[in-house]
């Protein structure tokens, strides 16, 4: 099962939606891992003919299933970073009316949303649907380093080595949640690690 119901939280926490086919002549769909399923759920021959799908497998194997939908363009990229030049190029050439669909982890959707917003699409006009891993992209508020795919709370900053508590405070600009030192007052007194939504 690739869907997860996030518990309610503070208002800074992003709320992800459910993809739906929208009117428009061009559709850019970025799917990471199980996100491919969200695209399969809304695919119609007409929509697919007008779609450019960028699929980042991250160990999953939906390529043949996506190919069977006969999208206008299907590009399989080894990672988000490797797909970024293509995403930017598609946005640069795009016109108003382009529909953007983002589906996969929060980290990927947040970063791709930044690209789309910088290209000129209001963030409320971009569709998202969370699928797959609930791991977070975290920014250490102390050294500003980003640690990807954080599943456990607290965790060790991959840049400065501080023990960080996973917070729900989110930065749209960084497309990351904040990680705050958990043992600043009493160094070494670190709570036991557990999964983020445990």
């Amino acid at each position, binding site marked *: 099962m690739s869907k997860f119901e996030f518990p309610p939280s503070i208002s800074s926490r992003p709320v992800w939606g459910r993809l739906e086919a929208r*009117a428009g*002549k061009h559709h850019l769909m970025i799917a990471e891992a199980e996100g491919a399923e969200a695209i399969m759920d809304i695919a119609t021959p007409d929509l697919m003919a007008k779609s450019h799908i960028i699929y980042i497998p991250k160990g999953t194997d939906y390529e043949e299933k996506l190919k069977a939908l006969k999208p206008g363009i299907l590009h399989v990229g080894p990672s988000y970073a490797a797909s970024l030049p293509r995403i930017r190029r598609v946005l640069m050439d795009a*016109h*108003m009316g*382009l529909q953007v669909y983002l589906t996969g982890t929060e980290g990927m959707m947040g970063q791709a949303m930044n690209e789309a917003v910088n290209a*000129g*699409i*209001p963030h409320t*006009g971009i569709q998202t649907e969370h699928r797959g891993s609930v791991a977070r992209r975290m920014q250490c508020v102390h050294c500003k380093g980003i640690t990807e795919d954080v599943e456990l709370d607290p965790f060790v900053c991959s840049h400065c080595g501080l023990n960080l508590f996973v917070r729900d405070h989110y930065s749209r600009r960084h497309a990351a949640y904040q990680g705050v030192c958990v043992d600043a007052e009493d160094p070494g007194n670190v709570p036991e690690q557990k999964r983020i939504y445990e």
Partner: protein
Amino acid sequence: MSGATKIKVRVTDIVPLNDLVTRFQFEPVDGSMLPTFSGGAHTVVEMKDGDRTRLNPYSLMSDPANRKAYTISVRRDDEGRGGSLFMHKKIKVGDEMVISNPVNLFSLDLRAKKHLMIAGGIGITPFMAQIKQLDRSHGNWELHYCARNEDLASYARELTSEHPNDVHVYYDVKGEAIDLEHLLDGQPLGTHIYVCGPKGMIDWVRGTAKDLGWPREAIHYEEFLAPKPGKPFEVKLAVSNKVIEVGEHESLLEAIENAGVDAPYLCRGGACGQCETNVLECDGTILHRDHWLDPEEHDSNEKIMPCVSRFEGKTLVLDR
């Protein structure tokens, strides 16, 4: 006192532009500087006509950086409630008037990479100020301006001579019209649309953009509704414990004000939402005319916008 802060001004210039449109210039009576504003802002002009006071909103069309004077253009409406006729017939250079501080309900979204402006008739006025503002900041803009004929296209000559490449004018009498679908299709990502003109034009632009997949947040529009006359009716104001009569040519908001009750407002045209009032009791039909409340709120009859909406029926009690 409700509404934006007031400014005492003197009329320093009146320029008739054509059969229907006249331009008025205001300068502060005390010689001080006017507040700056942003393109798209309007001012509410107080018109003291005998024992009757009208408050009408007009878009500011002067350069937003010019703090010495504001200008507005008033289109004469012979069938209207008389505000524009009062301005055309009674106001002379040298008269003192009271206007409100500028209020902007139609501002540019400066995150846009391109501003695509669509004007119909007198709807050109907010764009006059926006274009001056964008020119100063080297903004990327384009104007499509529709008018009945050359005489009534009040600012077409000025605009086309200053901006020959960015201004496109269409005359109804020549059978010219915007090829809207073609215009919207192919606009670069980050384009925002601004439309000001008759209701039909606004609906047409919003509908076409929606069908082409434009996000709602990239479409901006302004339509001031003049309160329409209607059958007189009676209203009870619960908080002030008064029963008032709304005359045929009077808006509900004006009747409330005339009864000495201070009611909030800003635009007086059904757009800004300031005058939203709770309905405590309603036995009859509220004639909703605003575009602030959504259709469910209109149907619920629990709220009314007294600046433009009216009532027909037995009893209406407002929380005011």
